[in-house]
């Protein structure tokens, strides 16, 4: 087997991981256009740093760590630029085919509940509930202690589950 070329590596990062990267980015920045910028930056950063990736964690948790950090720093930069949260970009049209089946009212409550969490908790809950990562993998990916992962997850789940009451697809 031959080693993949850099172009193939880049293609593979996009093909295999873009959706997960986007979800983590979007959960932190809460704006679809900004999430797309973060996704692109994170994938390019990871791709450039691939030669230094030592395989001590999975490629996915390494990439999602880069994504989370990129999202946080992008958000921070935006906030410094605007100073005024009301000037942050409007949420873009998020209606997808999947979303149309969801009752809009309860979805809004769910969205608000997600928004009410701190950024770290949002990433934690997405990595656990959507990406199915183990606690220690999340702890490593986000560089936070294990109890932080467990307790933030419990609190996030409680908040989100309460918002979900009454919504069943």
């Amino acid at each position, binding site marked *: 087997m031959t080693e993949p*070329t*850099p*172009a193939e590596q*880049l*293609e593979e990062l*996009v*093909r295999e991981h*873009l*959706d997960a990267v*986007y*979800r983590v980015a*979007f*959960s932190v920045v809460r704006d*679809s256009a900004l999430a*797309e910028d973060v*996704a*692109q930056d994170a*994938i*390019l950063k990871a791709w*450039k740093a691939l030669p230094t990736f030592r395989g001590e964690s999975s490629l996915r948790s390494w990439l999602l760590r880069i994504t989370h950090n990129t999202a946080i720093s992008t958000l921070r930069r935006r906030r410094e630029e605007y100073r005024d949260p009301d000037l942050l970009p409007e949420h873009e049209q*998020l209606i*997808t*085919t*999947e*979303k149309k*089946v*969801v009752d809009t009212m309860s*979805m809004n409550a*769910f*969205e608000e509940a*997600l928004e*009410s969490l701190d950024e770290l908790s949002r990433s934690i*809950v*997405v990595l656990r*509930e*959507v990406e199915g990562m183990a606690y220690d993998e999340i702890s490593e990916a986000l560089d*936070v*202690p*294990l*109890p*932080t992962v*467990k*307790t*933030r997850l*419990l*609190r996030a*789940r*409680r*908040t*989100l*589950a309460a918002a*979900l009451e009454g*919504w069943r*697809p």
Partner: protein
Amino acid sequence: MARHPNKRQLLQWLDGEADELDEHVDTCERCARTLEGLESPEADLRPALLSLLAPPDDLEQRINDRIAARVQDRRDMALFSSLLGVSVETGRVVFEPRGRTA
């Protein structure tokens, strides 16, 4: 480690009403275990999260186009090429959008 909060305080923390406990709860294995015993919501959050965070349908295409456009910039190409230890010419070949013949 400071005194552990009691169950009532931990429940308040879960409800977001005792943020002053953040620092303790974030690092205390014992309180994490206590909380796990107090609270284990059954709800499956995955469908709602997937739906809320769904990437746009054409995201992959757009990201590929954006990356390709970005590395058309010669400086970027030189940078990427040097990072990869290949020549700029190789760099350009690497970034030619798929389907285009040389």
